[in-house]
């Protein structure tokens, strides 16, 4: 097997062109939330675990209560196709000391959403004004890449349904369109979860931290920078990873990685080049194979067998 001089030149030209093109790709900007991005601030130190938000969420979104574990109660153990919002309880493990804490889990509405980046058909998209990440049933092909991509394990697949959906919090966008706040923030009796503009909520969170230094874990707001920032913000005395919120650094967000992918995939040149090389090798092999077959046939007079 050998590559002819002519083929080598062809490959070289294609490779050079692709390198030239990818070199022109600009580095993606750091993600930032839209100016009027809505947000939610959950303060775990205020939450009393009444689960009003769980009931209100299910009612507002027309979700069937999850009674699979306990036939008498709406008792989901995690976010699932019946549950867009859940209150969980952290208790120190045996032998550990420290306070217990509730945590409210729902979609974080990332500034740079992982699910939208993973979605091959843009079925998950981020609203340009409000920043709400929502799902479009018309575009979804059910590949569930979003489920794998989300570091918060939020999008859930409706396994039991014939025409399955991706279930996740969509920030009660229908209620917001009617001028109402999300059901969970509306019912919260302790205002442990509040709704507002993300920038104002961040300011409020920092005000709370300043007013009670040392009260909150690490004196920081989870979601300000984690994973490129989220529109749902958390305050807690217990460390965030104990509440099930993953440790993400500020540059762990899709556009950080996608800028490399963009360079590689720019104009589809590099993949085409690679395919071209492979096809070239294959063609060469087939040509040699054909030559051998013809020689064999001439020698023996029999049709060649593989």
């Amino acid at each position, binding site marked *: 097997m050998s590559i002819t001089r002519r083929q080598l030149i062809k490959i070289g030209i294609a490779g050079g062109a692709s390198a030239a093109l990818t070199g022109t790709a600009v580095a993606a900007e750091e993600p930032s939330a839209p100016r009027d991005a809505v947000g939610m601030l959950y303060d775990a130190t205020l939450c009393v*675990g009444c*689960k009003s938000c*769980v*009931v209100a969420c299910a009612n507002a979104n027309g979700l069937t*209560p999850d*009674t699979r574990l*306990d*036939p*008498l*109660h*709406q*008792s*989901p*153990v*995690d976010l699932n196709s019946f549950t867009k919002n*859940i*209150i*969980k*309880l*952290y*208790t120190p493990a045996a032998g550990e000391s420290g306070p217990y804490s*509730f*945590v409210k889990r729902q979609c974080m509405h990332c500034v740079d959403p992982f699910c939208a980046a993973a979605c091959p058909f843009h079925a998950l998209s981020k609203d340009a004004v409000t920043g709400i990440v929502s799902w479009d049933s018309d575009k979804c092909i059910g590949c569930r890449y979003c489920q794998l991509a989300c570091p918060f*394990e939020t999008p859930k697949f409706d396994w039991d349904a014939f025409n399955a959906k991706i279930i996740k919090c969509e920030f009660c966008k229908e209620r917001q369109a009617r001028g109402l706040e999300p059901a969970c923030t509306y019912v919260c009796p302790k205002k442990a979860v509040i709704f507002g503009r993300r920038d104002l909520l961040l300011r409020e969170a920092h005000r709370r931290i300043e007013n009670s230094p040392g009260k909150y874990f690490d004196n920081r707001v989870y979601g300000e920078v984690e994973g490129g920032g989220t529109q749902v913000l958390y305050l807690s005395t217990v460390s965030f990873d*104990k*509440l*099930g919120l993953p440790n993400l650094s500020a540059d762990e967000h899709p556009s950080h990685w996608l800028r490399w992918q963009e360079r590689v995939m720019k104009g589809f040149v590099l993949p085409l080049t690679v395919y071209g090389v492979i096809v070239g090798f294959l063609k060469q092999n087939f040509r040699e194979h054909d030559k051998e077959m013809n020689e064999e046939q001439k020698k023996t007079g029999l049709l060649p067998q593989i």
Partner: protein
Amino acid sequence: MARDDQKQPVTIGEQLRRAGIPRRDFLKFCTELMIMAPVGLAITKKAWAGDVAADLLKTVRPPVIWLHFQDCTGCTETLLRTSKPGVADLILNIISLEYHETLMPGSGRQAEEQLHSAMKTYAGKYVLVCEGSIPTKGDGIYFKLGGKPGTQLLEEAAAKAGAIVAIGSCASWGGLPSAGDNPTGANGVADLIKGVPIVNLPGCPPHPYNLLGTVLEFVRTGALPELDSALRPKFAYDRVIHEHCPRRPHFDSGRFAQQFGDDGHRHGWCLYKLGCKGPDTHAGCSTRHFNEMPDVWPIGIGAPCVGCTEKGIAFNVPIFQNASVHNFTPPATYPPIATGAGHPAHIATGLAGLIVGSAVGAAWTAAQRFQSSQESAAVNPPEPPKELVPVSHEKSNEDGGGI
């Protein structure tokens, strides 16, 4: 009874003044009414009991005719057992009870005469209260009054009534007498009478304030209170027992009495597993206890609700059969942070590794064998046939030779 009223209508205020009942007592009654029916009635939609009293004192006493059919008189008993207002207050001053077989002193022809004269005097105005179901089988031979079958009696009384109150489950849809095969063809009032406003006050028995509220609302505003699809007034039947049950925290915490007299039962735990129909039953019992005594109602004394205000439950569904829950709410427990979902067990990982490993091994071995057979074929090529002769398949098989 109250013969004077037949001459000219008397207001409740006038009657109270004549009887020397202090205003303070009437205010107490109005307060009680506001507590029992806080929403859904125009007469109690007031700032305070004084406003309710001012409104009611101007009201002409409602003439009430009370007919018994196939009943146990339990609904009458519940009205008599109420202490605020006392029965004397109730029948003498607030409503004008024109005919009631249990309470009237007269009997026989005297009683019959009173019934007919009341129906004539208050035609189109009186409230007809029916207690008990009306049998229709056998031309109504299972119930007769003054020689007339129940159906005829009801038709005559209903034709001139301003409104009909069917008190108790029997009058509402047949109740106990209609259970099972319904041997007497027992029916509720609403099944037989059309064209007259009818309100059902089911219950076995219903709370007396349901009757008082409904009757006073009718005479004050001229209209019945808002009704649900089963013709029950919403002010008293708008929610299920379960929603406001004092034992609900036990339900949410999973503390159930498992059998009568067990430790949980003695500690007042939830009666759901003993067949309580609270989740299925629309009634106000969980907030309006009987006889004005706290916890005097079935669940309060440890007896599961039988669903007496629901057609098709009481007398039809076995008492100890579990009810179905309609509005699911979370329990009093919480899921942990990590539920283990999405993290495969070590043993599963090991098994999967074994399967993958053996598949890879098998593929490798097969490839090696294939290669060695190829090599041996190259070293010892099979003899080509000397001459090609057509052979039949049987022949070749007999020879034992392959291809």
